[in-house]
């Protein structure tokens, strides 16, 4: 195990300098947040020497701010900490339930949404929820910070858009207004602690009359990465979100899925249940949006 090096900078500048100098000298680095994927890889599939850069002591990655316009969630905040925040759970219930589905109490004490995104698994549960909420990822690098939409952050199986001298600080979402609801549902063969066979996140916004004025739907575990299904959301816009509308959105999800067959399920099965999950998640998001319309300002 002595093939590794470790650094835990407390300021962003030195962290980025370290990444840049490693990138220039060809030294391999890996960013460490909660470690629930990285440390398993270190001990099993990938023992190659590298510098582990722990980003949890950077204030930027631990920052959580709920502003009047938007919400910023630091990349390295453990999901247990996020789930204990009642304001966050009431503002973004779908995103928070996607994080709450991942792992045991112990895993949630470490695992972060930023880490789930950077691990770039096709089945990462928080990724569809980030995409459905139009999250913008804030990336820091030697040349400054840049923003990338969550839908474009993952580029392939285990691959993100991060360059070797960059790190993810966190993500920003618009603070939901009245009439907003989101939801995430996945299918697993058991009730807890498994990897999604398929997953769907739905967000929607209703106007005062209950008509859907915006909706975004994203699917997970049915392609090489999580996908935004723009046409599925469009099927709901302008409707009062009847079962038939959700059925059309589900059909768009099936049409956009390009699943593989593996031990978790066949491609045919995944394509079928993604539509079912879309209808159900859409119904939950709709219920939340209606409750938000009727309730007090959030």
């Amino acid at each position, binding site marked *: 195990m002595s093939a*590794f090096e470790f650094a835990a900078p407390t300021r962003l500048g030195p962290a980025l300098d370290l990444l840049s100098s490693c990138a220039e000298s060809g030294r391999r680095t890996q960013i460490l947040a909660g470690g629930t994927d990285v440390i*398993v890889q270190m001990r099993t599939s990938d023992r190659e020497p590298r510098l582990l850069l*722990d980003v949890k002591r950077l204030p930027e990655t631990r920052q959580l701010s709920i502003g009047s316009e938007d919400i910023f969630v630091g990349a390295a905040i453990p999901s247990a900490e996020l789930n204990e925040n009642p304001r966050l759970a009431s503002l973004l219930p779908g995103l928070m339930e996607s994080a709450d589905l991942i792992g*045991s109490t112990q*895993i949630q*004490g*470490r695992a972060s949404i930023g880490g789930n995104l950077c691990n770039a698994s096709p089945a990462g549960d928080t990724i569809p929820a980030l995409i459905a909420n139009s999250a913008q990822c804030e990336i820091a690098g030697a040349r400054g910070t840049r923003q990338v939409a969550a839908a474009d952050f993952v580029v392939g199986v285990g691959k993100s858009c991060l360059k070797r001298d960059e790190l993810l600080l966190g993500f920003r979402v618009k603070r939901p207004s009245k009439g907003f609801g989101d939801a995430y549902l996945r*299918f697993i063969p058991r009730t807890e602690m498994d990897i999604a066979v398929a997953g769907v996140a739905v967000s929607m916004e209703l106007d005062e009359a209950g008509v859907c004025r915006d909706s975004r739907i994203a699917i997970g575990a049915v392609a090489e990465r999580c996908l935004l299904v723009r046409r599925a959301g469009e099927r709901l816009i302008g409707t009062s979100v009847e079962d038939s509308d959700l059925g059309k959105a589900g059909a768009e999800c099936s049409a956009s899925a390009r699943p593989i067959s593996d031990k978790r399920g066949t491609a045919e099965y995944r394509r079928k249940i993604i539509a079912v*999950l879309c209808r159900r998640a859409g119904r939950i998001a709709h219920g939340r949006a209606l409750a938000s319309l009727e309730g007090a300002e959030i």
Partner: protein
Amino acid sequence: MSRLHVTTSVNGVAHEVLCDPGQTLLELLRDELGLIGTKEGCGTGDCGACTVTLDDRLVCSCLVLAPEAEGRRIGTIEGVAGPEGLHVVQRKFLELAALQCGVCTPGLIVAAKSLLERIPDPDESTIRYWLAGNLCRCTGYDKVVRAVQAAALEMNPSEDRVFCQASTRSQEPRQ
């Protein structure tokens, strides 16, 4: 490769140790500090046998790197009993025979104690969800759940007991 100097507090006692950058907290506890109450099961965060608290939050010590412990507070099974004797959770595990081979027990007790510190009167479903990351191949979990309920009752006696559930965990089976 150079060893790293780590200063950490384990069960309230300050320790200074040298560790390898790739060593885990579990290895630090067992091999460097001789605290062998924490067990290694799977080594990949699935079984919970190595459960400890890190700044009062439950983690799998096999999924924490030793240098990450710098300046942090670690709590292990060795710190659960007080000078006056066993902790209620430990006593109830013994009284109600909530263990057989015992490999999962340190992790289960650390996790159960942490649950009761956060939620003093959890209902059965909350207990089962909270402990879902602690695998036990002997007991079938039923006696474990009874022991945690008995410990909760003794720690927080109440006439009209209302078992509450954790706020974020759904009671419905997950899809």
